[in-house]
């Protein structure tokens, strides 16, 4: 049965692609060993910055494209019921299309996107104008990277490795999942 719409999957993969591109170019700026291999800091910095602008622009475009359909998804993601709260206390509780952990991950991912964008713009313009320069911008940008990597590690483990959950990858690639898997993991989810 169908779990993710085309525009939901598009949003996910645009975000994932942008994240990995910015991670790669960002690490070249951040890790001395990679900086030494590549050098040309100015060029890499420009690529990283414009990649980030492109990423935010692409996300905005998908959100506009998705319109009310994505708004419905956002409503679904932000709403927590009693079963969600029980689930977070590690009790067995039937879950909807998204479980409570996925809802929190979505909220954090969205917040991090905003914060990555703001701190990245401040770093870029702060190099040119002291009004945009804060001593803590680089700490925020780096800290987000570390926390995002932790979230990503958990996300990849659940999506690719953990036997009970990795079937969900099919939902995010092809769009559909097995009915019996859905009944077991998302008992309250009843598509029309």
């Amino acid at each position, binding site marked *: 049965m169908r779990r993710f719409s085309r525009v939901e999957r598009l949003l996910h993969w645009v975000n994932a692609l942008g994240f990995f591109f910015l991670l790669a170019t960002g690490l070249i700026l951040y890790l001395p060993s990679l900086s030494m291999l590549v050098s040309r800091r100015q060029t890499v910095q420009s690529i990283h910055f414009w990649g980030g602008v492109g990423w935010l622009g692409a996300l905005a475009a998908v959100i506009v494209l998705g319109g009310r359909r994505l708004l419905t998804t956002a409503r679904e993601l932000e709403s927590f019921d009693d079963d969600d709260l029980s689930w977070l206390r590690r009790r067995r509780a039937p879950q909807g299309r998204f479980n409570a952990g996925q809802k929190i991950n979505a909220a954090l991912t969205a917040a991090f996107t905003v914060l990555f964008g703001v701190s990245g713009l401040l770093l870029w313009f702060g190099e040119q104008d002291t009004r945009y320069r*804060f001593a*803590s911008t680089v700490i925020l940008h780096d800290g987000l990277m570390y926390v995002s990597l932790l979230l990503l590690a958990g996300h990849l483990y659940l999506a690719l490795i953990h036997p009970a959950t990795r079937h969900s990858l099919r939902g995010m690639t092809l769009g559909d999942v097995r009915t019996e898997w859905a009944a077991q993991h998302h008992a309250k989810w009843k598509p029309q």
Partner: protein
Amino acid sequence: MEMDSPPLAGEQDPHPRRYGRGVFLATVAGGLSSLFWGKAAWDHVTGFVSPVASAVAPILPTGGWRIYTISGHMPVFDPATWRLKIGGLVEEPTSLTYEQLRALPRVEQVSDFHCVTGWSVKNVHWAGVRMHDVLAQARPQSSGHALEFISMEQPYIDYLTLPQASLRDVMLAYEMDGKPLKQEHGAPVRLVIPEMYGYKNVKWLEQINVVQKTTAGYWENLGYDRDAWVGRSNGYGT
């Protein structure tokens, strides 16, 4: 296109609790406010709680450093051909080999390194020579009031006034943390002036000229302050 509408949740809660929105807004608010307390908090954790600092430092893959270059190729140090040339307003232009530089009176110091972009490395152990020992043989003329530092990485250049260059802990460092200075840190020798931001600490030095007065260096031409005092320049502490 009906295939493209999102599958419904199947739960109709009359009073939804929008905690997800709360998590999102709280995270954004916390992150933005950290622009005003993040560095102080980080310095507090790494500076005063020494067990935490010593536990965190080895985990960070960078050792706290970030490598800045302005050109496509990092200068390569060749002991056979490298010379530190001292010229400009001097009685006797000189040039030191790496061996001759190492033979000058050696000093060591532990000082903090601050980048203007906000990151810092605490307690860097430098070894090298003081400026007056380097300049002694060339004998600067009395008309010289500043020093010009030229890097092998062209066109990187920067300046210090003589009083700035004579500060107690200014040095030309050829060792960092007990090892010969690495290429990415400016081998074979870099300027160290802990009171000023990193861009004044010229790497890959190959020439020092005594000049009448300072002019704008590489980053100063791009809008950074000529007197780059840590915490008192470039928009900080003003």
